[in-house]
Protein backbone atom coordinates (compact mmCIF):
# COMPACT_ATOMS: atom_id res chain seq x y z
CA UNK A 1 0.00 0.00 0.00
CA UNK A 2 1.40 3.34 -1.03
CA UNK A 3 0.78 6.33 1.14
CA UNK A 4 1.35 9.93 0.19
CA UNK A 5 1.42 12.47 2.94
CA UNK A 6 0.17 15.92 2.13
CA UNK A 7 3.31 17.44 3.64
CA UNK A 8 5.31 15.81 0.85
CA UNK A 9 3.77 18.23 -1.59
CA UNK A 10 3.26 21.35 0.44
CA UNK A 11 7.00 21.85 0.84
CA UNK A 12 7.38 22.70 -2.83
CA UNK A 13 7.28 26.25 -4.04
CA UNK A 14 4.67 25.26 -6.59
CA UNK A 15 2.01 25.69 -3.93
CA UNK A 16 1.19 29.30 -3.24
CA UNK A 17 1.85 30.56 0.30
CA UNK A 18 -0.99 29.50 2.53
CA UNK A 19 -2.39 27.13 -0.09
CA UNK A 20 -2.71 23.48 0.70
CA UNK A 21 -4.45 20.57 -0.88
CA UNK A 22 -8.06 20.27 0.11
CA UNK A 23 -8.74 17.98 3.03
CA UNK A 24 -10.29 15.30 0.90
CA UNK A 25 -9.30 14.20 -2.59
CA UNK A 26 -10.94 11.95 -5.05
CA UNK A 27 -8.47 9.47 -6.45
CA UNK A 28 -9.33 7.22 -9.33
CA UNK A 29 -8.96 3.50 -9.37
CA UNK A 30 -6.68 2.72 -12.28
CA UNK A 31 -8.70 -0.12 -13.64
CA UNK A 32 -8.42 -0.27 -17.37
CA UNK A 33 -11.43 -0.75 -19.65
CA UNK A 34 -9.11 -2.71 -21.95
CA UNK A 35 -8.86 -5.75 -19.71
CA UNK A 36 -11.57 -8.27 -18.84
CA UNK A 37 -13.64 -7.01 -15.99
CA UNK A 38 -11.92 -3.65 -16.11
CA UNK A 39 -13.71 -0.34 -16.09
CA UNK A 40 -13.17 3.20 -15.00
CA UNK A 41 -15.03 3.88 -11.85
CA UNK A 42 -15.40 7.00 -9.80
CA UNK A 43 -12.81 7.33 -7.12
CA UNK A 44 -13.76 7.21 -3.53
CA UNK A 45 -13.16 9.82 -0.91
CA UNK A 46 -10.29 8.99 1.34
CA UNK A 47 -9.19 10.00 4.76
CA UNK A 48 -7.48 13.33 5.35
CA UNK A 49 -3.90 13.52 4.16
CA UNK A 50 -3.66 9.81 3.62
CA UNK A 51 -4.13 8.58 0.07
CA UNK A 52 -4.54 4.95 -0.73
CA UNK A 53 -5.71 2.99 -3.69
CA UNK A 54 -7.01 -0.52 -4.06
CA UNK A 55 -6.26 -2.40 -7.26
CA UNK A 56 -6.96 -5.94 -8.40
CA UNK A 57 -3.67 -5.91 -10.32
CA UNK A 58 -0.08 -6.41 -9.24
CA UNK A 59 2.14 -3.34 -9.10
CA UNK A 60 3.83 -4.27 -12.38
CA UNK A 61 0.49 -4.87 -14.12
CA UNK A 62 -0.89 -1.66 -12.72
CA UNK A 63 2.06 0.33 -13.99
CA UNK A 64 1.90 -1.22 -17.46
CA UNK A 65 -1.82 -0.50 -17.75
CA UNK A 66 -1.53 3.02 -16.49
CA UNK A 67 1.37 3.93 -18.72
CA UNK A 68 -0.31 2.51 -21.79
CA UNK A 69 -1.45 5.86 -23.13
CA UNK A 70 2.01 7.33 -22.63
CA UNK A 71 3.51 4.47 -24.62
CA UNK A 72 0.95 5.06 -27.38
CA UNK A 73 1.95 8.72 -27.52
CA UNK A 74 5.65 7.84 -27.59
CA UNK A 75 5.00 5.45 -30.46
CA UNK A 76 3.00 8.11 -32.32
CA UNK A 77 5.79 10.64 -31.86
CA UNK A 78 8.13 8.59 -34.04
CA UNK A 79 6.66 10.56 -36.94
CA UNK A 80 9.13 13.33 -36.19
CA UNK A 81 12.07 11.05 -36.98
CA UNK A 82 10.75 10.83 -40.55
CA UNK A 83 10.71 14.60 -41.17
CA UNK A 84 13.19 15.38 -43.97
CA UNK A 85 15.55 18.33 -44.25
CA UNK A 86 13.47 21.38 -45.18
CA UNK A 87 10.35 19.93 -43.54
CA UNK A 88 9.14 23.47 -42.74
CA UNK A 89 9.57 24.74 -46.29
CA UNK A 90 12.71 26.55 -45.17
CA UNK A 91 15.80 25.46 -43.29
CA UNK A 92 14.33 22.89 -40.89
CA UNK A 93 16.72 20.00 -40.33
CA UNK A 94 16.15 16.33 -39.54
CA UNK A 95 15.58 15.31 -35.94
CA UNK A 96 18.30 13.29 -34.24
CA UNK A 97 17.05 9.99 -32.85
CA UNK A 98 19.26 10.54 -29.79
CA UNK A 99 17.23 13.64 -28.86
CA UNK A 100 13.99 11.65 -29.17
CA UNK A 101 15.45 8.78 -27.12
CA UNK A 102 16.56 11.16 -24.34
CA UNK A 103 13.15 12.86 -24.24
CA UNK A 104 11.14 9.63 -24.18
CA UNK A 105 13.46 7.95 -21.66
CA UNK A 106 13.03 10.95 -19.40
CA UNK A 107 9.23 10.83 -19.73
CA UNK A 108 9.03 7.12 -18.95
CA UNK A 109 11.31 7.52 -15.92
CA UNK A 110 9.29 10.47 -14.61
CA UNK A 111 5.98 8.62 -14.95
CA UNK A 112 7.38 5.52 -13.27
CA UNK A 113 8.64 7.66 -10.37
CA UNK A 114 5.27 9.41 -10.15
CA UNK A 115 3.50 6.10 -9.89
CA UNK A 116 5.91 4.14 -7.71
CA UNK A 117 6.82 6.93 -5.32
CA UNK A 118 3.64 9.00 -5.26
CA UNK A 119 0.95 6.65 -6.55
CA UNK A 120 -0.08 9.21 -9.16
CA UNK A 121 -0.26 8.92 -12.94
CA UNK A 122 0.10 12.36 -14.56
CA UNK A 123 -1.95 13.18 -17.65
CA UNK A 124 -0.53 12.02 -20.97
CA UNK A 125 1.12 14.81 -22.98
CA UNK A 126 1.54 15.26 -26.72
CA UNK A 127 5.06 14.87 -28.09
CA UNK A 128 5.85 17.12 -31.04
CA UNK A 129 8.81 18.35 -33.05
CA UNK A 130 10.13 21.57 -31.57
CA UNK A 131 12.36 24.37 -32.86
CA UNK A 132 16.02 23.86 -33.78
CA UNK A 133 16.04 20.06 -33.54
CA UNK A 134 14.48 20.07 -30.07
CA UNK A 135 11.45 18.11 -28.89
CA UNK A 136 8.40 19.66 -27.27
CA UNK A 137 6.32 17.85 -24.66
CA UNK A 138 2.96 19.58 -24.44
CA UNK A 139 0.20 19.24 -21.88
CA UNK A 140 -2.69 21.28 -23.25
CA UNK A 141 -5.46 20.42 -20.81
CA UNK A 142 -8.72 22.13 -19.84
CA UNK A 143 -7.35 23.32 -16.49
CA UNK A 144 -3.65 23.75 -17.23
CA UNK A 145 -0.92 23.98 -19.86
CA UNK A 146 2.71 22.99 -19.61
CA UNK A 147 5.23 23.16 -22.43
CA UNK A 148 8.52 21.34 -21.88
CA UNK A 149 11.39 21.61 -24.31
CA UNK A 150 14.11 18.96 -24.59
CA UNK A 151 17.01 20.51 -26.48
CA UNK A 152 19.05 18.77 -29.14
CA UNK A 153 22.22 19.67 -27.22
CA UNK A 154 22.39 17.15 -24.38
CA UNK A 155 24.52 19.49 -22.25
CA UNK A 156 21.69 22.02 -22.08
CA UNK A 157 18.94 21.86 -19.48
CA UNK A 158 15.34 20.99 -20.17
CA UNK A 159 13.22 24.13 -19.82
CA UNK A 160 9.50 24.49 -19.25
CA UNK A 161 6.76 27.01 -18.68
CA UNK A 162 3.13 26.64 -17.84
CA UNK A 163 0.01 27.85 -16.18
CA UNK A 164 -2.68 26.37 -14.04
CA UNK A 165 -5.66 28.44 -15.10
CA UNK A 166 -7.03 30.79 -12.44
CA UNK A 167 -4.21 29.73 -10.10
CA UNK A 168 -0.93 30.97 -11.50
CA UNK A 169 1.94 30.39 -13.86
CA UNK A 170 5.35 28.82 -13.43
CA UNK A 171 8.55 28.24 -15.34
CA UNK A 172 11.87 26.57 -14.72
CA UNK A 173 14.57 24.24 -15.95
CA UNK A 174 16.27 21.07 -14.81
CA UNK A 175 18.77 18.44 -15.80
CA UNK A 176 17.14 15.70 -17.84
CA UNK A 177 18.76 13.04 -15.62
CA UNK A 178 17.31 14.44 -12.36
CA UNK A 179 15.38 11.80 -10.44
CA UNK A 180 12.88 14.28 -9.00
CA UNK A 181 12.67 17.21 -11.42
CA UNK A 182 10.57 20.18 -10.40
CA UNK A 183 8.26 19.32 -13.30
CA UNK A 184 7.38 16.01 -11.65
CA UNK A 185 6.25 17.75 -8.49
CA UNK A 186 4.17 20.23 -10.49
CA UNK A 187 2.42 17.44 -12.39
CA UNK A 188 1.72 15.56 -9.16
CA UNK A 189 0.50 18.74 -7.49
CA UNK A 190 -1.90 19.42 -10.36
CA UNK A 191 -3.18 15.86 -10.35
CA UNK A 192 -3.83 15.81 -6.62
CA UNK A 193 -4.79 19.40 -5.91
CA UNK A 194 -6.05 20.48 -9.31
CA UNK A 195 -9.66 21.04 -10.07
Amino acid sequence: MTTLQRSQLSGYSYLSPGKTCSDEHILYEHRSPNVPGGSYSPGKRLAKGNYTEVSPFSDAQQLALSLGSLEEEIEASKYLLELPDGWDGENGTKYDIRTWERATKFLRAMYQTAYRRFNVIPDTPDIFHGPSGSIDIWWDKPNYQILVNCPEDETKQVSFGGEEFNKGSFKGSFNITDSYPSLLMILIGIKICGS
Partner: protein
Amino acid sequence: MWVVEEIPNQDKLFYRIHKNSYKKGKLLPGIFREIVDGMSTDWEKYSTPVDSVNRARASNPRDNGILGLNTGEVREIGLTVIHNPSKDNRSHTLVRGTSKKIQDDPDVRRRLLGISEILILPENL
Protein backbone atom coordinates in the same frame (compact mmCIF):
# COMPACT_ATOMS: atom_id res chain seq x y z
CA MET B 1 14.26 53.24 -48.20
CA TRP B 2 11.15 53.24 -46.02
CA VAL B 3 10.91 55.15 -42.77
CA VAL B 4 10.83 53.01 -39.62
CA GLU B 5 7.56 53.60 -37.77
CA GLU B 6 6.22 52.82 -34.31
CA ILE B 7 3.63 50.03 -34.50
CA PRO B 8 0.48 50.75 -32.44
CA ASN B 9 -0.62 48.13 -29.91
CA GLN B 10 -3.97 47.60 -31.60
CA ASP B 11 -2.45 46.59 -34.94
CA LYS B 12 -2.05 43.02 -36.12
CA LEU B 13 1.10 41.23 -37.19
CA PHE B 14 0.94 38.39 -39.72
CA TYR B 15 3.13 35.34 -39.11
CA ARG B 16 3.57 32.67 -41.77
CA ILE B 17 3.20 29.01 -40.77
CA HIS B 18 3.91 25.85 -42.74
CA LYS B 19 1.57 22.87 -43.12
CA ASN B 20 3.93 20.85 -40.92
CA SER B 21 3.03 23.25 -38.10
CA TYR B 22 -0.08 21.13 -37.61
CA LYS B 23 -0.39 17.77 -35.96
CA LYS B 24 -3.52 16.04 -34.68
CA GLY B 25 -5.47 19.09 -35.82
CA LYS B 26 -3.50 21.28 -33.44
CA LEU B 27 -1.18 24.16 -34.11
CA LEU B 28 2.20 23.28 -32.60
CA PRO B 29 3.99 25.49 -30.07
CA GLY B 30 7.26 24.85 -31.91
CA ILE B 31 6.36 27.21 -34.75
CA PHE B 32 7.61 30.36 -33.09
CA ARG B 33 11.27 31.01 -33.70
CA GLU B 34 13.70 33.78 -34.45
CA ILE B 35 15.83 33.45 -37.54
CA VAL B 36 19.03 35.53 -37.40
CA ASP B 37 17.80 38.75 -35.76
CA GLY B 38 14.17 38.13 -34.94
CA MET B 39 10.91 36.38 -35.76
CA SER B 40 9.77 37.72 -39.14
CA THR B 41 6.24 39.07 -39.35
CA ASP B 42 4.34 41.55 -41.53
CA TRP B 43 2.54 44.61 -40.20
CA GLU B 44 -1.09 44.85 -41.32
CA LYS B 45 -0.67 48.53 -42.22
CA TYR B 46 1.30 47.57 -45.33
CA SER B 47 0.26 43.97 -45.94
CA THR B 48 -2.70 41.63 -46.04
CA PRO B 49 -2.77 37.98 -44.97
CA VAL B 50 -2.85 36.97 -48.65
CA ASP B 51 0.15 39.19 -49.47
CA SER B 52 2.03 37.61 -46.59
CA VAL B 53 1.29 34.03 -47.56
CA ASN B 54 2.34 34.74 -51.14
CA ARG B 55 5.63 36.19 -49.93
CA ALA B 56 6.95 32.72 -49.08
CA ARG B 57 10.09 32.43 -51.14
CA ALA B 58 11.39 29.01 -50.28
CA SER B 59 8.19 26.99 -50.45
CA ASN B 60 4.88 26.61 -52.23
CA PRO B 61 2.45 29.28 -50.90
CA ARG B 62 -0.25 26.59 -50.76
CA ASP B 63 1.81 24.84 -48.10
CA ASN B 64 1.61 27.94 -45.93
CA GLY B 65 -0.94 29.68 -43.76
CA ILE B 66 -1.06 32.90 -41.77
CA LEU B 67 -1.51 33.61 -38.08
CA GLY B 68 -2.58 36.96 -36.71
CA LEU B 69 -0.95 38.34 -33.56
CA ASN B 70 -2.09 41.47 -31.76
CA THR B 71 0.93 43.75 -31.25
CA GLY B 72 -0.10 44.83 -27.76
CA GLU B 73 -0.52 41.22 -26.62
CA VAL B 74 2.88 40.33 -28.08
CA ARG B 75 4.42 43.18 -26.06
CA GLU B 76 2.58 42.04 -22.91
CA ILE B 77 4.42 38.73 -23.17
CA GLY B 78 7.62 40.74 -22.86
CA LEU B 79 8.67 40.64 -26.50
CA THR B 80 10.00 43.55 -28.52
CA VAL B 81 8.26 44.52 -31.75
CA ILE B 82 10.40 46.45 -34.24
CA HIS B 83 9.31 47.71 -37.65
CA ASN B 84 12.09 46.59 -40.00
CA PRO B 85 11.08 47.48 -43.56
CA SER B 86 13.12 46.18 -46.46
CA LYS B 87 13.22 47.34 -50.08
CA ASP B 88 10.80 44.59 -51.11
CA ASN B 89 8.60 44.55 -48.05
CA ARG B 90 7.55 47.73 -46.27
CA SER B 91 5.51 45.74 -43.74
CA HIS B 92 8.41 43.61 -42.48
CA THR B 93 8.54 43.57 -38.68
CA LEU B 94 10.76 41.69 -36.24
CA VAL B 95 9.64 40.22 -32.94
CA ARG B 96 12.41 39.46 -30.46
CA GLY B 97 12.82 37.98 -27.03
CA THR B 98 14.49 40.15 -24.43
CA SER B 99 16.67 37.82 -22.37
CA LYS B 100 16.61 34.81 -24.70
CA LYS B 101 15.48 33.90 -28.16
CA ILE B 102 11.82 32.99 -28.57
CA GLN B 103 12.58 29.36 -29.50
CA ASP B 104 14.59 28.95 -26.29
CA ASP B 105 11.74 30.05 -24.02
CA PRO B 106 8.88 27.52 -23.91
CA ASP B 107 6.75 29.77 -21.74
CA VAL B 108 6.92 32.56 -24.33
CA ARG B 109 6.03 30.09 -27.11
CA ARG B 110 3.11 28.75 -25.09
CA ARG B 111 1.80 32.27 -24.57
CA LEU B 112 2.27 33.22 -28.22
CA LEU B 113 0.23 30.20 -29.20
CA GLY B 114 -2.49 31.36 -26.82
CA ILE B 115 -2.84 34.75 -28.53
CA SER B 116 -2.60 33.41 -32.09
CA GLU B 117 -5.53 33.69 -34.45
CA ILE B 118 -5.57 31.54 -37.58
CA LEU B 119 -6.31 33.79 -40.55
CA ILE B 120 -5.38 31.47 -43.41
CA LEU B 121 -5.04 27.70 -43.12
CA PRO B 122 -2.46 26.02 -45.38
CA GLU B 123 -4.37 24.66 -48.39
CA ASN B 124 -2.27 21.53 -48.62
CA LEU B 125 -2.93 20.35 -45.08
